[in-house]
Structures are given as structure tokens and as C-alpha cells.
């Protein structure tokens, strides 16, 4: 019990902070902070699997998040029949060509010895394939995008429940991670960081500009939800009854019937959004707990010990007969898959997919701040980092506003510096993140909750 004291204390403080926001700002804000904290926690767990367990640096988190989001779109949106008729067949042929290209290149690599001839053959296959793709896909894409461009203009998805996309998103991200891992994992740490960062930018560029697939910057809105809609709740009697029950003492104080009805309506509207957020929080919490159990088990299993051994001394682990390359690839895939799940969860929560909003600052570097601040190598630490940093990220603006108003209270309202500072309140969050990261790196490099190695 005592060794978990700091964990319990840290989490209690975090929950208390969220409750304070609920009491002083509003419960909707508090719950949406909580939901995003949980999503961030999943992302940090993914990054922590890679960095904390294996020492692999992955700056491509943004790319996997976006792929997860794309999965949510492709799974849940109902297929656009017209678009499939217009160009679906050609797109499937294109997919076949890509697969064919990959296999023929693999065949060439296997059958022909390393030589100039082999390189030329591969180059030929790629150039020929690209030209073929261009010829087939060009008109098809044009036709697909011409189908009601204001509403659809893309192939749509499968029309399945959106919850499936959480798993599909994991698989999408894992697939990308397999390719990236094959390409980049041999590189030295800081090169790996740059390479993954740039590859994730390529992924975003593709999602942003291939309108037939994801509608690109036109965004996909109105995704299906796994939880009830506020409007439906407000109309259903059982929900109104519950709200009545919870607020009966307050309602009974009001004598006038019409007035009581108005108050009740307002309460129902508030309660419905809180209820929706709560169900989301419940769903996310289930994911977080399942992942936490799995990752904890893995960390303290022989496999986890091996990963730590590889991280701490690659050569020694190699000499002991562990396949370092294979294990690195595996853990890279696993971590990225978890990030992909988080990406799908986030799009599910928002109900919309906006490829333009994926920026490295928010989806890569912020997640890394979370991992470092929380404590790499410790799952509880990673989750705490996700909570604490996201909380600060959202609450930075109000805090900054408060501090600025306080410190400039002796200045008149028209003071240019004061106005300028108050206008730039949103950017103080970057300052806080940066200073927080620098302080933690300097004075507590192992993070708030450091890695703990249990000796069996």
C-alpha cells in the first residue's frame, strides 16, 4: 500500500482539480476536460509503450491519430452508392495495382542478387505502376468527387457502428507502423525522431488532399455516435423523470406550474449534455482500464523484462539471443496501434473528422510532454501525465488571464501593454508547457511518477 501512496495522492489531486472546475466553471467543461484527459491518457500509453518500455522515439503520433480518425470515418459513414458506381471499381483496381507492385518488388528483391540491374528493375516497376495508377485513378477520382461535392464527394464508409472503428483504427495505425518500422527503425534515436515526424506529415498530407477518401479539408461532419443524442434524451420520459427525481427538492420550492416547467426544461437540457459526456467518459474509462491491465501485465511479464533489457543495453540483450530488431518492430507496432485507437476515440467523441486540424504541436509534441512529465516507463505515470498536461493545456488560458489581471491591476484599462497581454492569453499555454517540460527535464527527469521495477 505504501508504495502506491504517491500514485493515489497524485490521482486524487487530479480528480479534485477536475471537480473544482466542475463546481466553479461548469460540469460540461469539467466533463469534456475529463473525456479529453482519458483520450490523451490512451495516447500517452501508446507513446509510453514505445518510449518507456523500449526507448524508441516516435514523433509520428500525429499520423497514427489521424489514421485512427480516418478509420472512424471509413467504418461508420454509410457508403455513397453513386460514388461507388462512378469510380469504385477503378479505385479497387488501383488498390490491386499497389498490392501487385509491392509483391513484385518483394519478388525481385528475393530472386535477383543485389546489383545495379535489380535497382533498375525496381525503379521500372515503380515508375510503370505510378503511371498506370495515374491513368486509372485520375478520371475515377474526378467522377467520385463530382458526386454532390457539397455533401459527399467521397466513397463513404461501411456504415457499421462507430465503436468498431476503435479496433479498426488500431489496425490501421499498426499497418502504418509496420511500414514505418521497416523503413526507419534501424536509424539512430534522433534520426528516428525526425524521420517519423516527417512521415507523419506525409500521412496528413495524403488524408488532407485525397478528397475521394476522406473529403480532405472539406471535413466529415455528423458522424454516428455510440451514445444517445441530447435531443432524443430531452424527449424521452425516463430521462426527464430521472432529472425530476434528482432535483425534486429544488423543483418543489417553485409554486407556479409554468415556472416549474421552464426550470425543469432548462435542467433537462443541461443534464442531457452532462449525461452524454458521462457515457462517453464511461466508454473511454473502459478502454483505459483494459489497456492499463494489459500493459501492466505485459510490463511485469518476461516479455516486459526483456524489453527493458533491450532498452537498457541493446548489445547485451542481442548477445543473450534476443532478436532486437524484431522486438523493436513489434513494440513499435503495438504502441502505434494504441495511439490509433485513441485517434478513433477522439473522432467518435467530436463527431467530426477535420484533417486540417492535425498539427504536430498538438498531436505529437504535446503528447510527448505528457509522457515526459508523467513519467516514462510507468503506465500510471503516463496516464497521470495525460491528465495533468491536458488539464493545464485547457486551463492555461483562464489561469494566465487571472495572473495577468492580478499583476496589472494597478495599470489603467487603456494601458497598451495590458491590452496586448490580455489579447495574447491563449499563447501562454505554450509558455506553460515549455517551462513545465524544461523544469521537469531538469529537476525530475524521471517524471512525476518514476518508473518502478518490481523484483520478483
Amino acid at each position: 500500500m505504501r508504495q502506491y501512496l504517491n500514485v493515489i495522492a497524485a490521482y486524487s489531486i487530479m480528480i479534485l482539480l477536475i471537480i473544482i472546475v466542475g463546481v466553479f466553471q461548469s460540469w460540461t467543461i469539467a466533463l469534456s476536460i475529463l473525456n479529453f484527459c482519458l483520450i490523451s491518457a490512451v495516447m500517452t500509453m501508446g507513446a509510453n509503450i514505445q518510449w518507456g518500455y523500449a526507448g524508441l522515439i516516435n514523433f509520428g503520433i500525429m499520423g497514427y491519430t489521424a489514421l485512427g480518425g480516418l478509420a472512424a470515418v471509413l467504418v461508420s459513414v454509410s457508403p455513397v452508392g453513386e460514388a461507388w458506381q462512378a469510380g469504385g471499381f477503378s479505385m479497387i483496381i488501383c488498390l490491386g495495382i499497389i498490392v501487385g507492385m509491392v509483391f513484385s518488388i518483394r519478388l525481385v528483391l528475393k530472386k535477383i542478387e543485389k546489383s545495379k540491374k535489380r535497382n533498375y528493375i525496381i525503379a521500372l516497376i515503380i515508375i510503370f505502376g505510378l503511371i498506370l495508377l495515374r491513368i486509372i485513378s485520375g478520371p475515377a477520382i474526378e467522377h467520385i468527387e463530382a458526386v454532390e461535392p457539397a455533401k459527399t464527394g467521397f466513397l463513404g464508409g461501411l456504415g457499421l457502428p462507430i465503436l468498431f472503428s476503435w479496433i479498426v483504427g488500431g489496425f490501421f495505425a499498426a499497418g502504418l507502423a509496420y511500414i514505418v518500422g521497416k523503413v526507419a527503425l534501424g536509424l539512430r534515436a534522433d534520426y528516428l525522431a525526425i524521420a517519423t515526424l516527417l512521415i507523419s506529415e506525409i500521412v496528413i498530407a495524403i488524408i488532407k488532399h485525397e478528397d475521394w477518401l476522406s473529403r480532405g479539408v472539406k471535413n466529415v461532419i455528423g458522424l454516428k455516435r455510440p451514445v444517445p443524442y441530447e435531443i432524443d434524451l430531452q424527449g424521452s420520459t425516463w430521462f426527464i423523470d430521472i432529472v425530476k427525481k434528482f432535483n425534486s427538492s429544488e423543483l418543489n420550492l417553485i409554486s407556479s406550474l409554468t415556472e416549474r416547467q421552464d426550470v425543469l426544461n432548462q435542467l433537462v437540457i443541461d443534464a442531457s449534455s452532462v449525461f452524454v459526456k458521462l457515457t462517453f467518459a464511461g466508454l473511454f474509462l473502459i478502454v483505459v482500464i483494459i489497456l492499463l491491465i494489459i500493459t501492466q501485465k505485459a510490463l511485469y511479464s518476461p516479455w516486459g523484462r526483456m524489453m527493458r533489457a533491450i532498452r537498457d543495453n541493446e548489445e547485451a540483450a542481442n548477445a543473450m539471443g534476443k532478436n532486437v530488431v524484431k522486438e523493436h518492430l513489434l513494440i513499435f507496432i503495438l504502441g502505434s496501434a494504441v495511439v490509433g485507437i485513441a485517434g478513433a476515440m477522439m473522432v467518435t467523441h467530436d463527431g467530426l473528422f477535420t484533417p486540417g486540424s492535425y498539427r504536430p504541436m498538438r498531436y505529437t509534441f504535446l503528447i510527448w510532454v505528457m509522457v515526459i512529465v508523467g513519467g516514462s516507463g510507468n503506465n500510471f505515470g503516463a496516464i497521470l501525465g495525460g491528465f495533468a498536461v491536458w488539464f493545464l493545456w485547457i486551463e492555461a488560458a483562464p489561469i494566465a488571464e487571472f495572473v495577468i489581471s492580478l499583476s496589472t491591476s494597478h495599470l489603467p484599462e487603456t494601458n497598451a501593454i495590458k491590452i496586448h497581454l490580455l489579447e495574447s492569453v491563449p499563447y501562454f499555454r505554450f509558455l506553460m508547457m515549455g517551462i513545465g517540460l524544461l523544469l521537469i527535464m531538469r529537476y525530475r527527469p524521471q517524471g512525476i511518477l518514476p518508473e518502478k521495477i518490481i523484483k520478483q
Partner: protein
Amino acid sequence: MDFLNAIILLLNYIFVPALAYGSQLALGAIFVTLIYGILRFANFATGDMMSFGTMVAILFTWYFQSKGITLGFLPTALIAVPFAIIFMILYMLTIDKLVFSYYRIKKSPPVQLAMVSIGVMFVTQAVVRIIIGPFDRRFFDGEKFILKAMEFKEMTGLNEGLTIKSTQVLTIIVTVIVVSLLFWFLNKTKTGKSMRAYSDNEDLALLSGIDPKRVVMITWMIAGILATIGGVLYGLDKSFKPFTYFNNMLPIFAAAIVGGIGNPFGAFLGGYVIAISEILITYAYKKFFTYILPETLEPDSLLQLLSTDYKFAVSFSILVIVLLFRPSGIFKGKVL
């Protein structure tokens, strides 16, 4: 005649812009490579440091403009640059003292320094946005064009015009001067040689009496000069926006790695490689081929390899290919 037209077309839309953009990238790439070669970490704050320098230059430019000091047909920003450089160097030395030196003395692994540079990136970005705001700013004044398309057409009687913006010429001239000075410094002076020695083998350099503090300080100073000039030139040519500068970090990294990180000359060429390939691959060649080919063969599609949306993706793909086949870069840098 058609042939000449085609060449002018390529010059106008590909080579002149690519040379200017490449010069801007090259300055940034040398900055990255110097930090990597001597301080031994990937500096993720590159783009934001450049935007800090540019911001100071803009503030000075506004000050000079308000005082009525201008350079006539040249942009006022040129007078502001030396002042901006002084501020930038002070900023960099402060950051080094407060942040980086601790890890350097502790001999932390490069990854940790890279993480720290992310912290610096956040802080610098915040400072820039708080001081000047996140908006697009143009601070160019003076003569805009050296050669206008219309004038060129009248002069030569060709169908295609050639436009040369003064900022493009300015960028190329300044880059050539700065880079040649830098190479002269690195190769001919004693301090430059000591820097290269330190980059090559730290222990040996220390043994032969090279003062590491001095080397580090001079590295940051040169980095400050490069960052400011590169940033200001980019801002003059296009416009200043903190977010764009942050994003520019990515092609700059690509240029540095493609050229062989740790090798300044490679970084210099890498900038042009990235810029030219970005523009070559995303340019629509339709008009070019209409000039070159006989009328019967005229193409009806745009003949564009990739749409311009993929401009960045092109440079990153080049980087990935280089990393796969020649991880030390085209011009051997530090072997990985």
C-alpha cells in the same frame, strides 16, 4: 523561338523561385547541421528560433519606418538585420546558459537534448506569439520587381515573361555572401578550424587545448546569424507567420539530412536539392510541352506529377529515400 519560350517558362516558374527558396532552406539547414555537428543534438526549436530572429528584425523595421529611415529601393529590413542578430545571439546564449549547458556538461544522450529543445521550442513559440501575435505580417518595402514580365516581353519579343522579384535576387546574393564567409571562416581561420576539430573528435580537441566553452559560444553566435538572416530573407520573400516558420523546420531538417548532417557544405546543397525537387515535381508541364512538341502531339492533361498540395510531402519522401539507401546523406556527413 518556341524553344526559347519554353526555357524562359522554366526559368520563370521553376528555377528562379527554387533558387530563392533553396537559399532560404540552405541557411536554415546549415544552422541545423552546425548545432548537430558541434553541440550534437537535433534542434527541434530551429524554426521557432528563426521566427524569433525575424520577429526582432520586424520590430526594428517598424521602428525605423516610423522614424522615416529607409534604404530607398532596398527593403528597410536590411538595416534592422544587424540589430536583430545582436538580440538573437543574446537570446541564444541565454538559452544555452539556462537550458542546454547543464545537459552538455552532464554529457546527456542526444535524445535528451532533443527533448529539451522541444521545451525551448514551446517557450520560443509562446514568446513570439505573445509579442507579435500569430498573424501574417508583411514587412517588405522598397522596389518590388527587378524585372517585370511585361518589360521582359517588350525587351525580347517573346511570348513568355520573366519576372524577377528583388527579394529573390537579394536572397540569393545575401546567401552566397553569408555562406562563402562561413566557409572561409570554418576552413581558413584558427577558430573555425578548432570548431571543426571539436566537431570531429571532442576528446582529441580538448587534449590539444581547444576551449570548449569558446567553441560552443561561437557556434551559437554563428547559428544566431544564420537563423536571423535565413528567417528575414524568407519573411521578405513570402511573409512572416510564426506557424509557417515552425513548419519550415521540416524541409530544413530534410535538407540537412539529405546533404549529410554535420556537413555544412552538404546542408547548403541539400537546401537546393529539396527546393528544386519540390518545385520540379509539383509543376504542371502542360505549357512547357506545348512549346516544345509539334502541334499534333500537344498534351491535353496538366502533366503534373503531383498536385502542389504535396509540396512538403515530396521533400519528406526524398528524405525517406535518402535515409533508406544512403543514411549518411548524399555528401557524407557523420556516419550514423
